[in-house]
């Protein structure tokens, strides 16, 4: 491992809204220590939080791998959930498959994926029905 790369790994607990957001908040603290521009930190933490919540709501949890280099922050959130049948459709603001229970908790507004796109420089969704979903979020530090 190169010296100026920081790698972080988090397990995202399933169906636990009280701990949801812990991974993104840990990343936020790390980026602050590194002196990364506050605006970049905000974008990373919001996009990552959305992805984290998605893994909790739809996929029974998953894992988050974060890599920080002097150039960019890369967040990969993978789950073994049901997968997204139509990724393009899922990217439409307001489109959601969240259950009523989830909606009552204030989640599932269908803004998750669109928000991730909005706050990142690059975003990739790889998904296979019945296998799982992998979301890659990239925010450039030096643009």
């Amino acid at each position, binding site marked *: 491992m190169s010296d*100026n790369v920081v790698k972080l790994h988090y397990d995202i607990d399933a169906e636990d809204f009280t701990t949801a957001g812990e991974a993104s908040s840990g990343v936020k603290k*790390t980026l602050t*220590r*590194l*002196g*990364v521009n506050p605006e970049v930190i905000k974008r990373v933490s919001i996009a990552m*939080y959305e992805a984290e919540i998605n893994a909790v709501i739809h996929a029974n949890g998953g894992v988050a791998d974060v890599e*920080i280099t*002097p150039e960019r922050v890369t967040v990969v959130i993978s789950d073994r959930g049901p997968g997204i049948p139509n990724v393009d459709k899922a990217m439409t603001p307001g489109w959601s498959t969240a259950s009523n229970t989830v909606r009552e908790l204030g989640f599932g507004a269908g803004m998750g994926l669109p928000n991730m796109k909005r706050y990142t420089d690059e975003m990739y969704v790889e998904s296979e029905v019945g296998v799982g979903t992998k979301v890659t979020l990239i925010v450039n*530090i030096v643009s």
Partner: protein
Amino acid sequence: MGDYFHSVVLEEDLCMGCTNCIKKCPTDAIRVQGGKARIMKERCIDCGECVRNCPYKAKVAMTDPLEKMADFRYTIALPAPTLYLQYDISKFGRDKILTALKMIGFDYVYEVARGAEIVTKASNMYLRNHDEPRPMISSACPAIVRLIQVRFPNLLSQIMPVKSPMEVAALNARREFCERNPEASPEDIGVFFISPCAAKMTSVKNPIEVENSGVDGVFSIKSVFFKLLKQMGKIKNAENILQAGFGGVRWATIGGEAKGIESDNILYVDGIQNVIRIFEQLEDDKLKDVDFIEAAACPGGCLGGPLTVENMYVAKTRNFRLKFVLPKMLNEVTETELDKTAFDRYPEHIDVSTLDSDLSVALQKLNKMDELCSMLPALDCGACGAPSCRALSEDIVRGKAKLTDCVFVLKEKVRNLAKEMIELENMLPPTLDNKSSGKAKGDF
């Protein structure tokens, strides 16, 4: 930034070098070194947590001595709303307290509660004229403003750009006094804030929202408490110099400010750790539907300040009782009173957490920190003088501490060394070692 003044300081003689304060500090600003709990100036926000928690009263909040009044020809007292709640309100009403302030030597008294009413009006106007950002955060508690500067730079733009009630009161008090006493020139007037709080003293010496504070000195509530009590016993007819209603007086307690905001979506939070949790949510873009947040570093709000006399729960009850006897406001806020209440300047980010200005180096230091942290026992015992193992590893990469500051690491090293010494002790050079020569005599 020149030498930053802090009102919270250490009385070295009293400090026992225990680790109570380092654990309570919300910004990890204290280290015990050489047996004394030293404050890292750039990190301290003067919240007063250490003052509250030191069992030896070694952390103190510096305020001005009352003798400072003698430096001015005329003096004005600005009593914080919290002062009223220090006394049994059925015996010592606000009119008596204000009269007693004049009896101990002040020429004029201006209630900070009136300043608060002006701030409420100015804040409501700001919210009406600006649709975003939301929520706006109160700027009244200087420890909170500094917390944002140090730890939450993303929230700087959400600070309500209206001066604190103390500054607004100082402005209006000086103006009113000069109007009534045309012979007085502004520099002859000393304006003194009667404070429940350490951070106000700091904000007078190092103003945040103004170039120069309108306040010339800060006296603690503790320092005037008995003096006023003595005078109040003598009062037959108290002067009628009340300016504020309950809308201003209730600022002493948490929620008192927020309840004056014209919105049905306000949030108020007290106690520095609770405030930090709310600010973390704000940073993640949550709570967007809230219009206004009142945040106070002290538990209960200003009445929980470290320079108060009365227990904060007792003070809270008194505040609650006042609600039923006071009108909300005595006089409408005028245009003149609102003049110059907007921020003269904006608080800026104070970076204290960055490991290195070069991101590459910072990444290396962070990896080093993780490596060091894994060598530490994770007990957060504080025996090294840092509040946690993580903080010690940070101090090490910053070159301010060494790994052997950890007693567990040190003990392990001593143990290994002792083991090695015993092993070495058992080894003898061949010239002295009879046992090793098990070979036949004469053979090498």
